[in-house]
């Protein structure tokens, strides 16, 4: 369903150039849940932004449903975007609109369906996320977990084949995380949706994923089933899974010596 080949991306110019993704390769299979995990700055969100067409790679290919999409523009991007739904980290709901109008928005924008049909579809989507009855509430009246569920209802509004999840459980309590996890699994298994989840919630990724890809500084350092990741001997993987502050993944992002950098400052 999704194939990424030799994806490279860097930002900045000259000395300031930072490589964010280096030779990223991945295959996300139909109806499966693939989680991309890694710490802040590992490049996992950059992968997602390439998949949704927000970034163009420096080199490499992105194949979605049989089409190479990395160089798509304008209308072509819009066409391919109808194949997938996105659940944004913040929910990205419109605060001035009711839940019903938020979920109906993609249907009103992208189809010629009758309003009566749309309202029934909205109810069906809300039932799927367990929030039928919340139609007339506004986002400000919802809890964080409910906002994520509404965002999910909107992501599946047009019956996409693929759903991208950007940090679906960030900022949620453990029970709400469990609810979102179950919804992602249900949608994937029952509706055959191909799911790509970008997350740093390790227990959640372990629960829901068919495959986990772990990134560190733009490179894949581990890939496999949750069981294989759990049994990894790689110190970086172990450190990330255990959430240990000490290990091969440094606390400081800087690669330069602290003392040297302070001394250099006085010469400037």
């Amino acid at each position, binding site marked *: 369903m999704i194939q990424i080949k030799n994806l490279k991306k860097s930002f900045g110019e000259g000395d300031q150039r930072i490589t964010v993704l280096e030779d990223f390769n991945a295959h996300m299979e139909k109806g499966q849940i693939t989680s991309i995990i890694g710490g802040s700055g590992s490049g996992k969100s950059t992968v997602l932004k390439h998949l949704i067409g927000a970034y163009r790679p420096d080199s490499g290919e992105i194949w979605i449903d049989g089409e190479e999409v990395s160089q798509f523009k304008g209308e072509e991007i819009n066409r391919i975007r109808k194949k997938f739904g996105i659940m944004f980290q913040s929910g990205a709901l419109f605060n001035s609109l009711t839940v019903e109008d938020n979920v109906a928005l993609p249907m009103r924008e992208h189809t010629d*369906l009758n309003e009566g049909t749309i309202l029934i579809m909205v109810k069906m989507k809300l039932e799927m996320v367990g929030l039928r009855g919340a139609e007339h509430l506004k986002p400000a009246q919802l809890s964080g977990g409910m906002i994520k569920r509404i965002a999910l209802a909107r992501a599946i509004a*047009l019956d996409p084949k693929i759903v991208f999840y950007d940090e679906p459980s960030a900022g949620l309590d453990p029970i709400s995380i469990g609810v979102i996890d179950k919804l992602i699994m249900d949608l994937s298994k029952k*509706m055959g949706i191909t799911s790509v989840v970008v997350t740093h919630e390790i227990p959640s990724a372990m629960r829901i994923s068919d495959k986990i890809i772990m990134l560190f500084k733009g490179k894949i350092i581990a890939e496999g089933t949750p069981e294989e990741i759990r049994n990894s001997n790689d110190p970086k993987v172990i450190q990330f899974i255990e959430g240990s502050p000490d290990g091969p993944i440094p606390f400081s992002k800087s690669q330069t010596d602290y003392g040297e950098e302070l001394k250099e400052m006085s010469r400037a």
Partner: protein
Amino acid sequence: MSIDLKLDKAGDTVTLEVTGNIDMSSSTKVRDALAPLFQNNNKVIVVDLSGVSYIDSSGIATLVEGLQWSHNSKNKFRLAALTPGVKDVFEIARLLSVFEVFDTKEQALAE
């Protein structure tokens, strides 16, 4: 994939035979064919789905609208010959039980 709709009227029953996929691009056509049937003296309205291998949520919603119209107009609204793929979608939406569903068009018309 285009959709083909055929009406078959016999006495006070009418069958809408659908062939093709019922999705976001074709649901409106099914709705336009279905809506007038509830304004006539059709005692039983049957949608024959034997030629439909795929239905999405807009298709299910369109059939729910038929159910709403039958509720208001007192016509009987029945679905017949659901293919396995279509039946799955109804089950996922937990809406199979709200419809009168028959294995064949003949059974739907006979009852």
